[in-house]
């Protein structure tokens, strides 16, 4: 038996979330029409904000190499910006690092016993350290939902603090796995705890369970970021991940970020989208805008 966890941390008081209003607001922000030049600008911006992700048991060095190639030159025929980062499992970090040498594409790795986080904190910290030493620029860790849902908020906080310390210079993205948190109030509280504990980014989901990222959940998290910024002046980044497959939906996320946090957050340093199949849809839409003809996925590489 482990001794009961002792923590100095007292859970923050966070405003309650009006669930109906959050859904309505998210819905309202989905109705903007973005066309022609604004659409092209938005699509290009989204390519640069993408964390091109492969997190499968079947990942091989070959698959990661081809993903990295796609990250460097998403469209071999025309110049489109390279993606923000490539996101892989820890054993693939050296492969990605070698493949992305000489580019400004960041290497992100999941760690801390992704996706469940069901392991002792020492083991989770150790994995983060190993990933950092392997050369990851960004580390995506999972919050301990077991502790959170049992009400051990102090433990949740102290664990994330330990992971943040272990990550050192690397950017720390904390995955809340909102699909397991049940309520918007819980999402709001979890966001605040992660921010207090030293997260550089807060991220919705692992992508391993549904629902993954949704508009209302992202809105609640963006509002937590906004309130924290207004209180302290510290800017935290946001990363919705999982289930964002279409360019149209991704553009709606951009609208929501702009309306909630302003233009300052419309950069890859503060906003990322974790996705794998979204990139091809962005390229399809960019090509459609360029030629005026509907494009086909068969002209694009897999990924």
């Amino acid at each position: 038996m482990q001794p009961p966890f002792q923590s100095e941390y007292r859970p923050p008081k966070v405003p309650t979330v009006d669930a109906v209003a959050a859904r309505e607001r998210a819905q309202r922000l989905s109705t903007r029409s973005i066309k022609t030049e604004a659409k092209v600008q938005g699509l290009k911006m989204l390519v640069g904000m993408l964390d091109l992700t492969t997190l499968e048991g079947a990942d091989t060095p070959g698959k990661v190499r081809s993903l990295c190639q796609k990250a460097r030159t998403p469209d071999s025929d025309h110049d489109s910006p390279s993606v923000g980062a490539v996101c892989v499992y820890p054993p693939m970090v050296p492969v990605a690092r070698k493949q992305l040498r000489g580019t400004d594409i960041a290497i992100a790795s999941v760690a801390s016993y992704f996706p469940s986080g069901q392991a002792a904190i020492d083991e989770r910290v150790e994995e983060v350290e190993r990933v950092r030493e392997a050369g990851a620029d960004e580390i995506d860790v999972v919050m301990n939902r077991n502790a959170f849902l049992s009400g051990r908020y102090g433990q949740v906080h102290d664990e994330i603090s330990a992971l943040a310390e272990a990550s050192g210079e690397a950017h720390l993205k904390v995955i809340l796995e909102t699909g397991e948190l049940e309520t918007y109030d819980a999402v709001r509280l979890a966001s605040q705890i992660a921010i207090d504990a030293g997260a550089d980014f807060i991220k919705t989901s692992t992508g391993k369970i549904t629902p993954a990222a949704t508009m209302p959940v992202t809105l609640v998290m963006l509002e937590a970021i906004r309130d924290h910024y207004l209180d302290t002046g510290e800017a935290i980044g946001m990363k919705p991940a999982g289930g964002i497959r279409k360019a149209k939906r991704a553009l709606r996320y951009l609208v929501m970020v702009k309306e909630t946090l302003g233009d300052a957050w419309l950069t890859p340093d503060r906003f990322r989208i974790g996705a794998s199949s979204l990139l091809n849809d962005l390229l399809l839409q960019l090509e459609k805008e360029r030629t005026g003809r509907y494009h086909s996925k068969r002209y694009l590489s897999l990924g």
Partner: protein
Amino acid sequence: MANICRASRKDFRDAVVAARDAQEGWAGRSAFNRGQILYRMGEMLESRRPAFVSELADVAGYDRDEAEAEVDAAIDRLVWYAGWSDKFAQVFGSVNPVASSHFDFTVPEPTGVVAAFTPRQAPLLGLVSCMAPIIVSGNAAILIVENDAPTLALDLAEVLETSDLPGGVVNILTGQREELRGHVGGHRDVDAVLSVGASTEERTVLEEEGAESVTRMEFRPDRSPAEWRSEESASPYWIAPFVEFKTTWHPVGR
């Protein structure tokens, strides 16, 4: 009579997505099963024979005998193409004599997603005569209907719905050919286009727009309802424009 939808380019775009998603599964069915489903379409059409007859009379202005003849011919045509499902490959495919110790086969495979500008004449039979040879080989079809009695096409959709045809294999759009033709020809996810009764301008637009993505183009003249009923309007050679031929070399084993 009714307000008919006028399909936009975005409806066509969505139809291509549906067709592309459905095509692989449809082509993966056994030829026999595709034949069963086409046969079932014929049966379901027959069960609605009186409704289609009176609709041809009321909406398209057919006299009663002609209406009955068209519905009967449409049923027969579905059954006829159903029979071809597991036979056209033997007729069009071949075993090729080669000068080495290989078996060498050429087999037809479906082209993929086919968009069809359907006849203005014979609102039921013309449609069926275009659709059946496209889908029997495993293609998915988008049928664009512009004629004086488009409700027949919509009622045919109900027949398809109740025939175990997988969703997305046949997509019916009512709309204006002139408005859609440029987008149909230029769409890179469309593998082949059939145009029945194309005007000179339509043909030019389709060929120019389709050239970049090397879309297969098949043009046929429209026919009168009586001509559509004749046996001349059903042919296995109407299956052939929408298949690709694959040749396989296989070493002869010992």
